[in-house]
């Protein structure tokens, strides 16, 4: 009885494994198997993955097959009498050397792919600097003076209690990173706080962004499209909520996009020169607060006791505006409080400080203008 179940179990495991993977190999279904991706490296990695997988399947069939045969035939209930052999140097040498040869067969193509993968420094057309920030990504086009922050889209934040039917739930951002196809893109990774990892499966790029160090990687995207990924290194509370969206477009579209981004930046700089009204500051401040501050300090300013301080009634917030601005702009060394001067512009910073002082249960009554932020930088 037991034996029948046992052998059936082996069959299920082995045939299930084989059929599931061979199906997906034929149809390249993303849901069951690794993506083949859209870069030369991602395709090499996929082939290597399938090679090692099939080697494992063959070894599995041999080992589990021998085991199943033995369980079938060499059982006491069938009158099997135990043999007494218990060593053979020859056979030990064989099953040491044969696996060694198989490993060499894996190591040779793996070495080639790894050397390609690590060749980020030569002949890059575009350099994109990626900064991990709790819990969003900052992209800086090093040669173009274009820089922006990309965080989880509001459409995902709104439906967390029931995301049914929300396409690309948790894989959508407010501002995707745009890259041209058929260009060698060199990514430079670093972090402003803890370790994150930038991962887009279709690009076969997964690299840690480490505070104080710069890592690199590269990709040449061969097909236009939208490619989604996520942070892959536990980076605190909202690790699961900092997606990546890459929009790969033709070179012409990419150039056009760069122009529009530069125009946007110029407009933002102009708005920082004017005086803002309390109403406008509060309205903008709420948006900025919810996108950048609420993850730690809470949507209502309550914080998380013992981990992140509350905004409501905070002596720092209720005190002198200059001290408040200093912490927001320059951060607080030795704590999780980031320096926001590199993340937000003058208007956003002025708005969020004003908001914190006059909302979330606080009512200091004063206003902070963008010019005050400019002076504090």
């Amino acid at each position, binding site marked *: 009885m037991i034996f029948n179940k046992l052998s059936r179990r082996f069959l299920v495991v082995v045939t299930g494994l084989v059929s599931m993977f061979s199906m997906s190999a034929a149809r390249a279904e993303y849901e069951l198997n690794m993506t083949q991706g859209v870069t030369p490296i991602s395709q090499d990695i996929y082939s290597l993955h399938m090679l090692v997988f099939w080697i494992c399947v063959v070894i599995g069939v041999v*080992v589990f097959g021998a085991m199943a045969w033995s*369980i079938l035939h060499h059982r006491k209930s069938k009158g099997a009498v135990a043999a007494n052999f218990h060593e053979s140097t020859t056979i030990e040498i064989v099953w040491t050397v044969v696996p060694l040869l198989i490993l060499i067969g894996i190591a040779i193509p793996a070495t080639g792919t790894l050397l390609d993968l690590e060749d980020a420094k030569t002949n890059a057309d575009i350099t994109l600097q990626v900064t991990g920030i709790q819990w969003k990504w900052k992209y800086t086009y090093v040669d173009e003076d274009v820089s922006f922050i990309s965080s989880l889209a509001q459409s995902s934040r709104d439906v967390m209690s029931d*995301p049914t039917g929300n396409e690309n739930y948790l894989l959508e951002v407010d501002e995707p990173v745009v890259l041209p196809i058929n260009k060698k893109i060199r990514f430079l990774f670093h972090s402003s706080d803890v370790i994150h990892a930038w991962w887009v499966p279709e690009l076969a790029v997964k690299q840690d962004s480490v505070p104080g*160090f710069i890592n690199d990687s590269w990709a040449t995207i061969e097909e236009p499209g939208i490619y989604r990924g996520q942070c892959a290194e536990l980076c605190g509370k909202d690790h699961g909520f900092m997606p990546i969206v890459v929009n790969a477009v033709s070179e012409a579209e990419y150039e056009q996009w760069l122009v529009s981004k530069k125009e946007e930046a110029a407009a933002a700089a102009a708005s920082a020169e004017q005086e803002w009204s309390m109403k406008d500051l509060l309205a903008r401040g709420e948006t900025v607060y919810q996108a950048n501050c609420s993850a730690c300090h809470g949507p209502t300013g309550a914080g998380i006791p013992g981990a992140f301080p509350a905004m409501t009634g905070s002596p720092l917030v209720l005190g002198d505006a200059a001290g408040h601005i200093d912490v927001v702009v320059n951060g607080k060394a030795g704590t999780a409080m980031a320096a926001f001067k590199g993340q937000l512009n003058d208007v956003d910073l002025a708005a969020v400080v004003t908001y914190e002082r006059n909302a979330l249960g606080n009512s200091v009554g004063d206003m902070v203008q963008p010019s005050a932020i400019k002076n504090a930088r």
Partner: protein
Amino acid sequence: MYTETTHDAAHGEHHDHGPAKGLMRWVTTTNHKDIGTLYLWLAFIMLLYGGSMAMIIRLELFQPGLQWVEPHFFNQMTTMHGLVMVFGAIMPAFVGLANWLVPIMIGAPDMALPRMNNWSFWILPFAFTMLASTTFMEGGAPAFGWTFYAPLSTTFAPDTTDFFIFAVHLMGISSVMGAINIIATILNMRAPGMTLMKMPLFVWTWLITAYLLIAVMPVLAGAVTMMLTDRHFGTSFFDAAGGGDPVMFQHVFWFFGHPEVYIMILPAFGVISAIIPTFARKPLFGYSSMVYATASIAILSFMVWAHHMFTVGMPVAGELYFMYATILISVPTGVKVFNWVTTMWKGSMTFETPMLWALGFIVMFTIGGFSGLMLGVAPVDTQYHDTYFVVAHFHYVLVTGALYSIIAAFYYWVPKWTGHMYDEKLGKIHFWWSTIAVNVLFFPQHFVGLAGMPRRIPDYSLQFAEFNAISSIGGFAFGLAQVFFLYIVIKTIRGGEKATAQVWEGATGLEFEQLPSPPPYHSFTEAPPVR
């Protein structure tokens, strides 16, 4: 070597006094059997505690969206689940088995250092109480993963992290003392004639494991001490702004962490090497090659740590070296599996419960080994790293590997320990229930991992929903099966069919050949004859 004369001179003829009565028996005991029992019970309680946190994780992941817990609490659950299972369940269970079995396998009256043995156990309940208490403190339990990478665990961690640091120190002290004791016992207290190459493989694997423990637990202690001084005393070991390096933390951690995973699997190899020959009624194939393979795995385990770090930005030469060294481990591990299968070949097998768990171990540990080989291939690890593929891999080797061997060991030796046979029918139900559930639980995690689901996330996009739901159902079923196991354990202790001295028809070794079931409170007060 063991000498009976000195022992006799000290204690006279009154050797067979039983245990003290009441609770103080367990607090003050220096008896290896009592301490082994204490370790095993602690491990079981921790298994249920760590398992209940796994249930919370699977509950939240049952469907997309945030239904049950907040992300911050979810991170506390994954962290504490890992810490409790590694340091609280698997490691103490193997130390418990060593306490019970090593003396009666080598013909020794007790462990070499019985008072230290008591101390090394009694540290642990306090360490785990302290660690668990952080869950109820302001700031919450550790939420930075059981690997506690800096700076998330230093600059960015709540104050409760200091309790975690102290608890890890205590666990380390306990482990090192336990390891010293095991080495001292094995090297000094073997019965005359029990040469090293006659020792059961369980004793061999534990001897090697104990050296691993002594080598790497101080490294872990160093890592948490550097964390402590970074947090409070102005050092910058892991802070680049002060000249340190967060990646160095990972090198230090994994220099401990990789041998640690072999600490959790080598004794399992010893258990399986005892059970397979008994139920195949045939001696273990390739005993000496098993010993050498174990030693090779242990040595290699010190030289592969950075394969956990292929994405941190290492020089390419480093990545190549760590890839080659890592995939090389599959050779001695393969030798072990081949030896077990060959032991079964042309045997006369029966399939009592311990054998079923051992066979389950071989099949599913091998599946975990295959995914391990895949993960070792550095360029492909770019896609696997920190995904559910890794989660599936290490649960196949730790749950269906280490835990399965511990359960197999329980069924195999519990008739010897208690003198009662367990209920064979219930044991078989426990095996099939667990084995089906555990595969429903972990096999789909390979697929979601390959499809792109990162690990340690409280919520996921809709494409991963089906497999996560399946996985959660398997998880609940597996959890329930271990509550059923608790019932079997209690039932066996309270009574059952009388076990013979040999217990199993094919059992060999001093504990089965020279001792009744259960053995007297003090066994082998005179050295047994060794063939």
